[in-house]
């Protein structure tokens, strides 16, 4: 039995409505408990902001990121955020580290932990290459991990939707999650991945997918029906059509509206829209490009069925990586950048392109503003998940920098002062004076994730929850984040302590221990007769079209370290 007493912590835990109150936290055997014995090890947290461990609900940290590493060896040497990037020699406790946007697996684990983050969700797992994702998960120390499996351009999915077979579709989703050991349903540019198989794209929700006689809207509605039928812990997680195109805010709102009538099967949103910054563009071309954030946030303020994340841009180098194959090709042609692509048979597409966000580019400046506008114009922080869509908008190691933008209008003004007049004309950010407090920041970085992913033991400090805790060397009452943003950034860049399951993994910004995290995956129950009918269909797919055998397709148990199987009951 191991016990820890965190004394006199200044606790900010929105899940319990606790806003920076001084209190003790008791830990026994990795869980938060009511009380501990006198033998408990004491951590003095007096004067320190204490929150649940951070939870990054949308990050590209395993799988496709390897293509980014492979084609950008120059990234390994980049040290733009000292202490959280660049080359670091091995120590007795830690493996060697490299990288900034695409760090090696060990660096990902250590650096998230230093920021006080303890759980991450990989944003895209292609079913066929899921084994690869899990191999990388295995080498990411400390963090608990989960991943979202791609279904938005999958042949079997589109055929079941076209043929109006919702039960078999749900059975297939359940099987696909099991095969890939995924946690939820990711839909990227629905139908666009298939169109990209022929070098084309879909242009909106009602543009039919070539050869499959379904529309993106039908794919979305089919998948959400299956998602709710299976009572999955997470809602569908949607990367909208037309990403990165001026005028796409309309598609985004239209997509959100589609889900208004969906009844969620659990106490959570029925739709999560991801990296909305990239999908909140107004204008008709790059010439008259401007922010669409006011329109999108207006809609979200009046809606209660959805959550979203930012995809905030960080100035400097980034690496874009997405299952949205046509977008990456377009990026590479427009920016004259190198381009990697990986179409996945019967399932989806993907691409990787490095780029550079410059404050001198009016488009980049407006993109930067849009992310913040969305966070600040949407009134209820319980709808907003903070992300940079790492490393698409920028590396996760810049989160502390981004927090200062959210918390300080003065800091924003400093950045904005370097923008061109054209950029200023295309954004509304300069007129926004809202500044987030620590409580709201905690909502966006850990509390809402607990709700969005139905993980009640994460993202809060309730008795019974996992003792994943971040203790920052900063005291809310004694610091003004609106002016003292350098102190805020410093405190969030390296915790005084990070605890993972009650183990001190970071102390004074340095790695103390590197335990292995868990892998969460969802096993949704489906009636045997529906399952076997579905299996017959996919057996045919494997026999005729796949190039791997069905038995070799499933990710084997041995690839999952500390697996946590989340069972759900499908309703048929």
């Amino acid at each position, binding site marked *: 039995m191991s016990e820890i007493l965190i004394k006199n912590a200044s606790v900010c835990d929105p899940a319990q409505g606790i806003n920076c109150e001084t209190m003790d936290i008791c830990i026994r055997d990795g869980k938060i408990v009511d009380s501990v014995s006198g033998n408990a090890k004491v951590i003095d947290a007096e004067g320190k902001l204490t929150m649940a461990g951070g939870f990054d609900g949308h990050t590209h940290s395993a799988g496709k990121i390897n293509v980014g590493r*492979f084609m950008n*060896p120059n990234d390994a040497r980049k040290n733009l955020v000292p202490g959280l990037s660049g080359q670091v020699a*091995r120590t007795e406790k830690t493996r060697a580290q*490299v990288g900034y946007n695409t760090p090696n*697996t060990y660096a990902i684990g250590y650096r998230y932990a230093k920021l006080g983050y303890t759980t991450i969700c990989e944003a895209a797992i292609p079913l066929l290459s899921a*084994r690869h994702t899990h*191999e990388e998960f295995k*080498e990411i120390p400390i963090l608990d991990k989960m991943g979202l499996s791609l279904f938005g351009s999958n042949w079997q999915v589109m055929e079941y939707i076209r043929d109006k077979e919702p039960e078999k579709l749900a059975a297939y989703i359940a099987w696909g999650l099991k095969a890939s050991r995924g946690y939820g349903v990711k839909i990227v540019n629905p139908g666009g991945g298939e169109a990209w198989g022929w070098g084309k794209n879909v242009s909106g929700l009602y543009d039919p997918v070539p050869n499959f006689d379904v529309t993106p809207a039908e794919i979305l509605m089919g998948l959400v029906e299956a998602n709710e039928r299976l009572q999955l812990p997470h809602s569908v997680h949607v990367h909208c059509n037309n990403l990165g195109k001026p005028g796409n805010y309309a598609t985004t709102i239209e997509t959100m509206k589609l889900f208004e009538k969906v009844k969620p099967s659990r106490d959570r949103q029925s739709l999560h829209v991801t990296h909305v910054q990239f999908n909140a563009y107004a204008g008709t071309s790059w010439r008259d490009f401007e922010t669409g954030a006011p329109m999108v946030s207006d809609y979200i303020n009046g809606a209660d069925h959805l959550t979203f994340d930012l995809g905030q841009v960080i100035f400097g180098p980034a690496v874009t990586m997405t299952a949205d194959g046509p977008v990456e090709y377009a990026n590479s042609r427009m920016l004259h950048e190198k381009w990697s692509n990986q*179409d996945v048979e019967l399932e989806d597409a993907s691409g990787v392109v490095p780029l550079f966000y410059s404050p001198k580019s009016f488009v980049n400046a407006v993109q930067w503003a849009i992310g913040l506008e969305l966070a600040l114009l949407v009134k209820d922080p319980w709808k907003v998940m903070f992300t940079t869509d790492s490393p698409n908008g920028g590396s996760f190691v810049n989160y502390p920098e981004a927090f200062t933008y959210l918390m300080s209008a003065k800091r924003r003004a400093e950045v904005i002062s370097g923008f061109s007049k054209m950029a200023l004309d295309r954004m509304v950010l300069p007129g926004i004076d809202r500044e987030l407090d620590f409580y709201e920041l905690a909502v966006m970085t850990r509390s809402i994730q607990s709700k969005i992913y139905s993980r009640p033991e994460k993202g809060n400090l309730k008795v019974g929850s996992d003792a994943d805790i971040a203790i920052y060397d900063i005291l809310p009452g004694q610091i003004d984040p609106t002016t003292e943003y350098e102190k805020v950034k410093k405190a969030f860049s390296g915790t005084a302590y990070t605890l993972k399951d009650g183990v001190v993994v970071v102390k004074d910004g340095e790695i103390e221990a590197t335990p292995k995290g868990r892998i969460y995956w969802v096993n949704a129950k489906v009636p045997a007769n529906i399952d076997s009918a579905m299996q017959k269909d996919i057996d045919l797919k494997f026999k005729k079209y796949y190039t791997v055998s069905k038995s070799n397709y499933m990710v084997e148990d041995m690839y999952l370290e500390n697996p946590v199987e989340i069972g759900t009951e499908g309703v048929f």
Partner: protein
Amino acid sequence: MPVIKDAVCSLCGSLCDDITVTVEDNKITKIENACILGHSKFVGMFEHDRIETPMIRKDGELVPVSYEEAIEAAAKILVNSRRTLSYGWCSTSCEAISGAIKLAEETGSVIDSTANVCHGPSALAAQEKGSPSASLGVIKNRADVIVFWGCNPVHAHPRHMSRYSSFSKGFFTEKGRKARTMVVIDVRKTDTAKLADKYVEIEQGSDLLLITALRSIVNGHEDVIPETVAGVPKAELLELAETLKNAKFVCIFFGMGVTQSRSKYKNGDAVSSLISDLNQHTKAVMIGMRGHYNVTGFGQVATWETGFPMAIDFAKGYPYYNPGETGANDLLVREEPDAAIIAAADAGAHFPQKAVRHLARIPVIQIDPYANPTTELADVVIPSAIVGIEAEGTAYRMDAISLRMKKLIDSKFKTDEEIVKDLTTKVRELKRGA
């Protein structure tokens, strides 16, 4: 009589996963679906001489010792070395590769794979221009124009054309070979070229000229093309460019004829650019024809664990990458390493003379199931189980799809994974003692 289905063949980068193996009395007695190369690998292990026992060279002769003695001798070499080269690791599992990287990190070694003398330039090309690719099933289901450039799958990847490319039938390619155009570009009429609809014979070392000319035509600048390029008449080039542009889906498979001929990585760089240009007209991708069954896996594991796919120098404690300086042959030709560990590859047979000469001068540890020219140079020889037959583990197909290789029969030999682990433990022990 156990029949094992869907076994993965651990011979070439095609990594066929539909092999049926019959095992009787711990012997493989029947193999179905494998090609001649795969078949030889499965049965060959009973016919060829294995390294039967660990050995240490004493007075010029390799003498049998126990695994413990061999591991200890190997660990001593590593601990006493100031500059170790760790090379190979491509005909083994990702798990063994991961262990080898960890060992290299702890001993401050340079670790490199067989890509150093194979598809290494393809990695450099990807670092210049990216790698627009697809899984092999995409080719099977969609491609109507398939180009084999500087590769000869008939002999090197015998089932490639039937499973994934020319002859395969898929969703949009029901007619298989009949509805496909197969192009072969090479310097000689190979057996693959004999099967092609169109064979383009080019002058040796002129690939870059040809690719550049094709790009010019595809981009609408045919007026700048001289009457012949790379020994190919302009008219033939125009026709080839039209074939590519008018395709529904193009895949260029490229081999060592592209990566190891004159211009090296610039060839792959140009192919990547050609693919990007072709996508203005059609859909096009490229796939490297990787040789060793898990050389792709080395690149993958090394990339996620160190940030780099090959030629990784841990001398400074963190990974440093500079191919040309930190590649296996770069080091050996400079006579830099004072010890080497060579596993699951054969430097003795495939490296240039000067490099081999240096290997002969320094202590060499070999880990391999079979004796080969490297054995003649080795001072410590550690036999291992054959992955995919006697040991399980992960491997990556040439299109970066990973598969779980099965253990089919028991073996008295330790696996590469175990050997690396034991070696690492011993090295730590000796270091602590020191």
